[in-house]
């Protein structure tokens, strides 16, 4: 195989659009370069391949970042990130408490809303990275998420019902939806469908950590009733019994999406920033 053919194959590393524009010119430049510098093939090819890899990686990165944004995917990614942030914050709290634990603290109860506030703050900060409209909005979103999580978690602990847990997550999902809709997304049907999917993802990612936090961090919380999502995630719950939980979660996501859709669409129509 000639050097030119090898180089032509290597050009596949660039995006199709880039190749369409510059393939022939690059090959021409390579040909001329090969003509004057190929006396030391090892050095020459090391230079060419290094140049190709670095520039192709950069070009691919630029091409990807220039692609039109897909609100559904962007939103789902944000939901997953937010859920992971919840799980991370919950584990960090558990670890901190166990690390500093002293028998003197035995029986000390930290209210569930406090966990919710901390978790919500972490979540709000993650979500607010989507906001590019000034610090005031970011602070507002973080505060709102924190309050919503605090209230939601307190309600979960008080009632221990799947529906209330769904409400907490509904608040989280609604917050992320708010961000995306503020960017001008109007297709409500897709958004509603996405919110249901995201709700299930959020439950999957955060339920385990949330429960371990409630049980392990708060001594009094170990006796609290916890709902079936724990068993659902471990698939020990028979399918017929787990179905109502999934249905409740889906309905919560659906309700959250429906309730916020109108508000956000109106906000968008008015061109109001969040």
């Amino acid at each position, binding site marked *: 195989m000639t050097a030119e053919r090898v180089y032509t194959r290597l050009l596949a590393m660039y995006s199709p659009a*880039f190749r369409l524009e510059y393939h022939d010119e*690059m090959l*021409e430049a390579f040909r001329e*370069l090969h003509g004057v510098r190929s006396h030391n093939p090892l050095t020459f090819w090391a*230079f060419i391949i290094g*140049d*190709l890899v670095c520039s192709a990686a950069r070009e691919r990165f630029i091409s990807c970042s220039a692609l039109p944004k897909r609100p559904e995917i962007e939103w789902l990614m944000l939901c997953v990130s937010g859920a992971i942030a919840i799980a991370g914050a919950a584990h960090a709290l558990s670890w901190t408490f166990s690390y500093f634990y002293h028998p003197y603290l035995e029986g000390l109860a930290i209210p569930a809303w406090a966990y919710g506030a901390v978790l919500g703050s972490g979540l709000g900060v993650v979500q607010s990275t989507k906001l590019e409209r000034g610090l005031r909005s970011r602070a507002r979103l973080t505060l709102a998420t924190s309050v919503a999580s605090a209230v939601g978690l307190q309600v979960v602990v008080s009632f221990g019902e799947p529906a209330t847990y769904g409400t907490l997550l509904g608040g989280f999902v609604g917050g992320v939806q708010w961000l995306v809709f503020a960017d001008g997304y109007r297709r409500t049907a897709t958004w509603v469908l996405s919110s249901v999917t995201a709700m299930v993802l959020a439950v999957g990612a955060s339920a385990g950590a949330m429960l371990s936090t409630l049980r392990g961090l708060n001594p009094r919380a170990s006796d609290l009733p916890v709902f079936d999502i724990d068993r659902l995630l471990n698939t020990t719950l028979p399918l017929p019994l787990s179905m109502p939980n999934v249905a409740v979660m889906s309905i919560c996501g659906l309700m959250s999406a429906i309730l916020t859709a109108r508000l956000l669409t109106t906000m968008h129509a008015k061109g109001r920033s969040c």
Partner: protein
Amino acid sequence: MSEPRPVLTRAEFQILLALVGGARHGYAIMKDVEALTNGALRLGPGTLYTAIKRLRAGGLIEECDPDSERRRCYRLTRKGRSVGADEARDLAQLLTAAHKRGLLPGT
């Protein structure tokens, strides 16, 4: 309100500098950059054309009539010349500062 000045990479600035001397095709730019930097910067075709793509997108260079061998040539735009001059001015200021601080021997 004036448009923010694009941030140039070293390769991009060298390409602008090479094109100050007139329109050139890709390989001529590569040779010119190498000569301008005394061989310190050698552009490969990949780096060269990704930089050209970015410079064209930013309106700093443009394609012009092909040369006698029908190779695509590029030339500086007015904006490219202005951005290149600003960049050179910044570099000159840095150089002066380096001299003042004794980082470089005095002239």
